[in-house]
């Protein structure tokens, strides 16, 4: 727990937090890591396989096959989400199915399904990026910052 949060607690509350912790079932971190490693690895292996398909059958190169591969993996994960399989996989694999791009697809389509009852514009449209929105925002922003640093560095060292 963050220190700032701890400061706001009375001694009694801090004592209770410690007391309660002994009854908590701990997250099986090692087991989760192993499961995440293998499931995540498997998803990436499938992705690699799809990428080779694009290279050998559709004249993509190793550099350009990334985009259609991500799109295909996202498409598959959207289907799995729609059929109610991905959330079960998620409970089993944890980060293994959340970190690859398929997890991104899952976060989008699950929100879209969830808010379908509120209509297409305010429901689906307004909520589809409810979870993925922050990934996009901070992804784009950090890419911008990194690119900016690289550009400044190159300008200063005369590389540009």
């Amino acid at each position: 727990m963050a220190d700032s949060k701890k400061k706001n607690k009375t001694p009694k509350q801090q004592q209770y937090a410690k007391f309660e912790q002994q009854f908590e079932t701990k997250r099986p971190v090692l087991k989760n890591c192993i499961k995440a490693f293998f499931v995540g690895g498997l998803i990436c292996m499938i992705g690699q396989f799809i990428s080779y398909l694009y290279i050998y059958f559709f004249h993509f190169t190793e550099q350009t096959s990334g985009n259609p591969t991500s799109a295909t993996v996202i498409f598959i994960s959207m289907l799995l989400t729609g059929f109610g399989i991905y959330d079960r996989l998620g409970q089993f694999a944890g980060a293994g199915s959340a970190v690859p791009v398929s997890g991104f697809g899952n976060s989008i389509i699950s929100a879209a399904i969830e808010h379908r009852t509120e209509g297409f514009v305010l429901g689906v449209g307004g909520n589809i990026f409810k979870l993925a929105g922050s990934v996009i925002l901070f992804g784009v922003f950090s890419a911008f910052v990194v690119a900016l640093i690289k550009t400044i560095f190159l300008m200063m060292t005369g590389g540009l």
Partner: protein
Amino acid sequence: MLRGKQSWEFSNHPVIRSTGVAVGPFEANGNLTADFDVIHDDLWMGNTSYEQAHRMLLEEAAQTALKKSNLKPEDTQFFIAGDLINQITPTSFAARDLQIPYFGLFGACSTSMEGLALASFMVNYGGANNVLTGASSHNAAVEKQFRYPTEYGGQKPPTAQWTVTGAGVGLITNNPLNDEKLPYTTSATIGKVIDMGLADPFNMGGAMAPAAADTILAHFNDLQKDPSYYDLIVTGDLGKIGRETALALLKEKGLSLDSNKFKDCGLLLYKENQPVQSGGSGAGCSATVLYGHLLNEMKNGMYKRILLVATGALLSPLTVQQNETIPCIAHAVSIEI
């Protein structure tokens, strides 16, 4: 009659004449299927939204309870109920269809006992002859509001709990009609809000345990009884972790409970192999287990006196995101036969 600081004693013995319980598919596969009146085999229940299905559960439970007592909605003076959804719309919409004068309650998962306590109080003092009271929750509707989309593949920790899809309603009356032995309420203890500083919404059992312990202690203090008076003390939805924590807390405060006589609705409802992590939760948890299972057990002679302590976590998704801790409450009602 007020007893002690925060308890009522119902000397006129308001009777729980009939009950109605409607549940979803996951609960139907659990431990207590035989005790439920209406069972649905999918979460939509023929509706176009989960919120509508939620409302339908409560309506069905209420209609079943009325039907079993041969009463019509107009014979009932008040309907006291609540749920977990924003502005308790499922309950209010059900009340619109029932057309019974209505008190909407929000006590999170403690609503069932908040309602039963108030209904018993009214009936005991002649404020009403027949009162319908209950609580409900719907897994997908509640998850949608409080957590992530239902199909989102996030991993729940072992401390998390599973929201019950179900509604439980009881008809409280001063007129038991026939000679059949029926359960009646004898006392209620209203809890105060307790916040012991836990903030993890995936560990509500741990957060609610102090509230349960506080209300149980207050109950025995106010009514000058000791735990051996009851055949069973049942908490609403503490789950595995909360139950053990509450037991230990009570022991620390000098009240030793027999762990075989201290059960939890959230643990009674599901089978061992159902993936509910720490146990069931939700406003419908204590309502379905009490009005379905426990009262049947009492009628079968299994228990004579029980104390039901329903616990509620009074958080909202907003307060969680703003890093607030989780205030909790527990209300207890004793039922005898």
